């Protein structure tokens, strides 16, 4: 299968994502922010970085990129879209996902490995994990505190759309271990159609045990499995 990796001028996780996909033995192609062409990929990754500098608000400008018009259409037709870190911020700004990502509660940037509990394996991104599994995955952000109004949060929970929660190592509530103070310790959510995932942690940084953890690779593996089983979720423009 083929992953597409969006590249905005300020993107810096593009090459890390490509390497993780390479470790898994699959193909990826970079998608330039000014283009509309999604190159026939099976899954679009919006990686980490600072898209257009994020001077105004994270992701606020990126949602208007030419590439994002195609991503919107792709997502609407059921295509797999995966926002990581800055990509999650962009997806919220683009209203492909509800809620918003605000400044970390500590008011400081945080780069560290955190524990994530998989809250549902019923998504194309988590199907290779068991629900309740705890993954070691690094975060690296200054604005990752997920917020939404109570009814949205309740709906996300009721529809089992919370994909990951920050937890302690043993899977219990994060408490002080939350890197950003997200509401209900939410680290990642999926769209109503479950084909769009946004998450703050960086699974591509957890793709090799040499670097501390190989847990993130299970998410990439999930996508490969899902596509293999179902074929393309949607056809991106060739």
């Amino acid at each position, binding site marked *: 299968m083929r992953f597409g990796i969006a590249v905005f*001028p*300020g993107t*810096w*996780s593009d*090459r*890390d994502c490509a*390497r*993780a996909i390479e470790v898994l033995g699959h193909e990826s192609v970079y998608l330039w922010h000014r283009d509309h062409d999604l190159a026939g990929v099976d899954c679009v990754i919006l990686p*980490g*970085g*600072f898209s*257009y*500098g*994020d*001077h105004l608000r994270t992701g606020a400008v990126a949602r208007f990129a030419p590439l994002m018009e195609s991503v919107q259409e792709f997502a609407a037709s059921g295509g797999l879209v995966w926002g990581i870190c800055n990509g999650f911020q962009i997806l919220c700004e683009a209203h492909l996902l509800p809620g918003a990502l605000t400044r970390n509660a500590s008011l*400081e*940037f*945080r*780069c*560290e490995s955190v524990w994530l509990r998989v809250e549902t394996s019923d998504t194309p991104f988590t199907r290779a994990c068991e629900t309740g599994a705890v993954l070691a995955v*690094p975060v*690296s952000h*200054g604005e990752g505190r997920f917020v939404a109004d109570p009814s949205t949060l309740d709906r996300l929970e009721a529809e089992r759309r919370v994909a990951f929660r920050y937890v302690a190592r043993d899977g219990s509530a994060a408490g002080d271990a939350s890197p950003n103070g997200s509401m209900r310790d939410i680290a990642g959510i999926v769209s109503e159609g479950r084909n769009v995932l946004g998450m703050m942690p*960086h699974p*591509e*940084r957890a*793709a*090799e045990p*040499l*670097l*501390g953890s190989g847990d993130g690779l299970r998410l990439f593996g999930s996508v490969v499995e899902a596509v293999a089983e179902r074929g393309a979720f949607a056809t991106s423009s060739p």
Partner: protein
Amino acid sequence: MTAHPTVSDAQLAEVALTREEYALAAERLGRVPTEVELGVIGAMWSEHCGYKTSKPLLARLPTSGPRVLQGPGENAGAVDIGGGLACVFKIESHNHPSAIEPYQGAATGVGGILRDVFTMGARPVALLDSLRFGPFEEPAQRHLLDGVVAGIGGYGNCIGVPTVGGEIYFDESYRHNCLVNAMCVGVIEQAKLTRAAAAGPGNLVLLVGADTGRDGIHGATFASVELNEASSERRPAVQVGNPFLEKCLMEVCVALAGDPRIVAMQDLGAAGLTSSSAELAHRGGCGIEMDVARVSRRERGMTAYEVMLSESQERMLLVVRPQDAASVQAEFDRWDLHSDVIGTVTGTGRMVVTDAGAAVCDLPLALLIDEVPLRHPDALRPGGLDAALGVDPLAAAPPWPAGETLLRLLRSPNVGSRRPVFRRYDHQVGDDSVVLPGGDAALLRVRATGGGIALSTDGNARYAALDPRRGAAIAVCEAARNVVAVGAAPVGVTNCLNFGNPEKPEIFWQLSEAVEGMREACLALGVPVVSGNVSLYNDTQGVSIDPTVVIGMVGHLEDLERRCAAGFAHDGDAVLLVGPVGMDLGGSEYQRLAQGVNAGPRPTLDLDLERRVQAAVLEMIAAGLLASCHDLAEGGLGVALAESCILGGRGVALTERLFSLAAPVVLVGLLFGESQSRFLASAATGDVAGVRAIATRHQVDVRELGTTGGNRVSLTGVFDLGLDEVTRAHAGALVPS
């Protein structure tokens, strides 16, 4: 041209030239310089650009070796790391700006050192920062620390280059002059190394990146004078960074490395267009002609003088053939980067500047670069040193039992965990960080070769304060030990010399001694100095900082599988002290805490022993005999033991009778003395004989101290602490109480 008929003291002060230097310039020129020329000469003859005080000293440093691909003289140095790859690196100070405006000062320090590396075509893969502040207990100092850390993170995190290491010390000596030294490391195919030497008269000079504004005018001269109460009014001399713009610039420059269309590339740093264009042309034995009217401005009404001396960030000069200009400009357009053709390369050996055609500057480049009037200040060994060195730090009875002393040391802001700082830096982007901050040296994978590079900065100024020669030599050895501890062979040094006003004979003596110490240590260890930077005039109201030699060390590891980490890895391993038993307490962190002074003999340093110990440890790691390896530094053996326990998440039981039999004062020396040339290692019991065999061959002592495991950190008959208590003390060091 309008000449400069008379020059006032104020005008000379603005460009930091003495009247004698001004007269010399006029004599060489055969006329008085114009206003623009005066600014250009002042900048080029400043300590910051011209090294007028330090140049004769720096010439003593060893700069060559079989691995050296580029020594001093370019934007950064480069060494061979195998597989046809070069490691490009440099360290640079941004002290004065950070003291005035910590966030932007530090941020633009990072931006500047990044440009030095990618201007050579190399993709930056790591940043390190060496920081010095006044006492951590003081809110004003913590405010500076917070601003500097935020600035480093703000730039590095945004541009996507991991900040993998560095160090922080707090000392009274830096109360009014904090130090911010930033090091950048890049990797590139050797064949693509891009040089900054203009060639081919008629070729075009492109200025790329940010528009030019009034920020940072006189930054170079500002850095070459002492700070005083009015310094905060020099905030306009501090630049403002835009890491997003630099990210775009970096991507294009890295992509253009090795491209035949690029004749030369040179970034704009101190003294902006002035020094970059002069150095670019002079390196290639050419001349240069520019029209400042063609420079895109950020603001209206800028004079030629301001354009030439602006230190606006994120700018780059390129030399291209005329037929390639349009296609090269298109590469920058793709990233929305603006570029202007501002001039041409000439064969005249002169820097000619016009403003919409009117000549404003016409100077021989040799005058600006080769003929910098060198200063040879008097050197004077300060009085009172002998008295201070004669103090016996072992004379005073220890105020606390050994266990409490250890906890106090771990809680010291100079010793304890740096996590509250490094978790504010992205240290993983790029996916090559194998050993993360907190160990001895950062270790980065080099994917193409299966090897790695180990990186460290070090520089304990307490040793250098009383003996700059020994202190500088120790800084080199300590930085080398850091990379050796992860299994890498030291292959190159970059250095930043942070000193007070060299016009004071005592300071010049310190500088001269320190360079000598660096020279001796680099020669003994066989490590060349390939790049560096000098920051003088770190004085406020006549008080100078302690001489601070910061060494940036690069180590090379052939095979990443043959690496080592500092944490105890298994239960039941033998704990080994590799190197001599010693009790050097003079200048130690213990002495600061317990006695509040810095006195007594400096730690002994036998360079031949140092070389042998490092060689032995490298061999032990390469043979796969060590389960952990940690350098002994501040806080000595006691702190190293605690750190190996904390990093490994397991305790240790020491049974060595040397300690339990020692008198309290000797015990303190043994446990917390900072004797050099030592490592704390652990090995499976079955491997101890192999370790001893290697040590014997190198004539190095190995002493078995005890066994790893459990959740206590104990020394029979001396102390018995819980691992959690030890971990908490260490973790709390940089958390304000």
